[in-house]
């Protein structure tokens, strides 16, 4: 995880077309400027970044399921709950499943746990749009780096 670069997913642990499900792993970094403000002397992973982590896992799930034909852009967050705190060094297990595939949009349900303990969950909506110029190759490269392409293949 590199919070300042919005690189929230370290690796894809599993991807299933049949179950429309992805599992990812990340580790909260030991140090980050984010923790200097959130909060001074009491570093905690911000809820917005946990939401972004669920969104990125969901995004990779959708990209895998639709084989990179469109780019999923976050369009809505519903029923977000933050159940426990996580701080530097915490291992995160992120799971996302596709709840609905609409025409031009998709809905996922995502959870994050740490050492088996529930951290947060949400329902996320994505608008599926044509890739902006050059982004398709970048997303494929990022997906390959974290192991998604191998999982799809």
């Amino acid at each position, binding site marked *: 995880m590199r919070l300042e670069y919005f690189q929230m997913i370290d690796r894809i642990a599993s991807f299933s077309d049949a179950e429309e499900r992805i599992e990812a792993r990340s580790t909260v970094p030991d140090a980050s400027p984010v923790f200097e403000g959130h909060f001074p002397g009491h570093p905690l992973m911000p809820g917005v970044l946990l939401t972004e982590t669920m969104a990125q896992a969901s995004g990779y799930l959708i990209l895998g399921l639709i084989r990179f034909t469109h780019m999923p852009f976050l369009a809505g967050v519903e029923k977000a709950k933050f159940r426990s705190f996580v701080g530097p060094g915490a291992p995160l297990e992120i799971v996302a499943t596709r709840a609905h595939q609409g025409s*031009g949009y998709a809905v996922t349900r995502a959870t994050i746990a740490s050492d088996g303990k529930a951290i947060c969950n949400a329902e996320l909506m994505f608008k599926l749009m044509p890739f902006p110029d050059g982004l398709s190759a970048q997303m494929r490269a990022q997906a390959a780096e974290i192991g998604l392409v191998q999982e799809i293949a």
Partner: protein
Amino acid sequence: MASTFETVADIIAETSDIPREQITPDSHAIDDLGVDSLAFLDIAFAIDKAFGIKLPLETWTQEVNEGKVPAEQYFVLKNLAARIDELVAAKG
């Protein structure tokens, strides 16, 4: 059992925070009710779930943008309700 229009009107009122009494069969979702494209995704998701269908939003948008079909055919609520009834009938 609620009519298709009533179900759609309830969905729009709830998802877009529009007073239910402002929503009539002749309301245009975009021009009269001010529903934007992102809000319409919430409405489409609720309609898909409520009726067990998949509103073909991409096809509709393309047809409207290409001038093949006037937007009223899809976005005036009595017409939207008719399109939903057709989709429900088509799925058997």
